[in-house]
């Protein structure tokens, strides 16, 4: 071996930084000298250990204050949608949505609204007084569609229907457009107020099982559901009452 390879050169090789000629030179040296090969391996192992030491941060939930900063300005009221709704309710009745679920949801909303606002001429929902309200086809589907498990021509599929702890009807939905999202909407008067929107976990053409619901939506359901989801008969009956409470329940 005539060329003395510096440790820095071996490190650069391990990091994939060398050009073709220099790489060939190192590989030849590694083949000749096991000590060189071991040195390269040490650099690689150290790099992997260092990277691995911080991987966990990527899996942590992003604090809401950071997600809120980059959410759309128009989405600012959306960010604390769940909180606003809670604020209107007696505190004792409500289980607080896990903070991270709200964060994940608000982050998804920010991204989604950002994409949607540039491409979609008619949004399936609109912000009204700090609340997202279903509009157009989404509103119509929430009003009339039963949970058949099929996507209708408008790309909306209804999942679960249930009553929340205030006695209002809520429905989960999937919205298949350029960007597929899932969400939870609850009845408020004649409107559907969106509680959570989240990006779909997978993007495949075929139908997913109804259970394939983003975690943020599932948590939102868990946080507000009262008892069990409606069965098919109860769902149809509720639709026929336009999702208003039946007299015997209201009394």
């Amino acid at each position, binding site marked *: 071996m005539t060329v003395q390879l510096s440790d820095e050169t071996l490190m650069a090789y391990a990091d994939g930084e060398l050009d073709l000629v220099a790489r060939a030179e190192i590989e030849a040296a590694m083949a000749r000298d096991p000590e060189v090969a071991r040195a390269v391996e*040490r650099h690689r192992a150290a*790099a992997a250990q260092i990277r691995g030491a911080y991987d*966990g941060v*990527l899996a*942590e939930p992003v604090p809401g204050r*950071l997600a809120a900063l*980059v959410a759309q300005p128009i989405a600012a009221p959306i960010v604390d949608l769940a909180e606003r709704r809670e604020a209107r309710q007696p505190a004792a009745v409500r289980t607080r949505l896990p903070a991270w679920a709200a964060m994940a949801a608000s982050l998804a909303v920010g991204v989604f609204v*950002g994409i949607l606002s540039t491409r979609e001429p008619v949004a399936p929902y609109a912000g009204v007084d700090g609340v997202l309200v279903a509009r157009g086809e989404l509103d119509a589907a929430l009003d009339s569609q039963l949970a058949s498990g099929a996507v209708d021509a408008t790309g909306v599929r209804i999942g679960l229907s249930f009553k929340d702890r205030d006695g209002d009807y809520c429905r989960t939905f999937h919205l298949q457009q350029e960007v597929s999202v899932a969400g939870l909407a609850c009845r408020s008067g004649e409107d559907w107020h969106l509680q959570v929107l989240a990006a779909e976990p997978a993007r495949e053409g075929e139908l997913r099982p109804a259970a394939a619901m983003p975690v943020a939506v599932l948590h939102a359901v868990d946080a507000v559901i009262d008892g069990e989801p409606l069965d098919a008969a109860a769902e149809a009956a509720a639709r026929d009452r336009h999702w208003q409470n039946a007299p015997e329940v209201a009394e």
Partner: protein
Amino acid sequence: MTPTDDVRAQLAGLLPRLRRFARVITRNVADADDLVQVALEKALTRADQWRPGSRMDSWMFGIMKNAWIDEIRARRRRERVHAPEEAGATVGDRSAAARDIAMSVQAAMARLPEDQRMAIALVLVEGLSYKDAAELLGIPMGTLTSRLARGREALQAVLGRDGR
């Protein structure tokens, strides 16, 4: 408005990595998220300075690096002690052994000089090329390479277990 929408969407996607980078350079969970917040605010007010098509992660890391250096200087002026380092913020379903290693690496990283830790954060944790990292730090490639080498050497000396 439209570039800002684009910037916002991209920033939202980068948040986990910005938090990781901040964790490496500040060595402290609270400082790290404060740094991300400051950098996001700066980025949003000067979103027009980002060139579409260029790497937003590098742009953000540069803003964070400068903000952190400013913060360190301000703290020194105020003669305030650094917030105590706080390792072990790593979550996940790792084995105890893997967690131990991660914590020793974080502790060893925390003891590196600022410039070496910054170089390692950019290249080894965030995966920037030597060239991009050197440009971002405003230093020659050779300087970056030697900071990386010295930082790694110090880490390997501390960790030691894979040594010869």
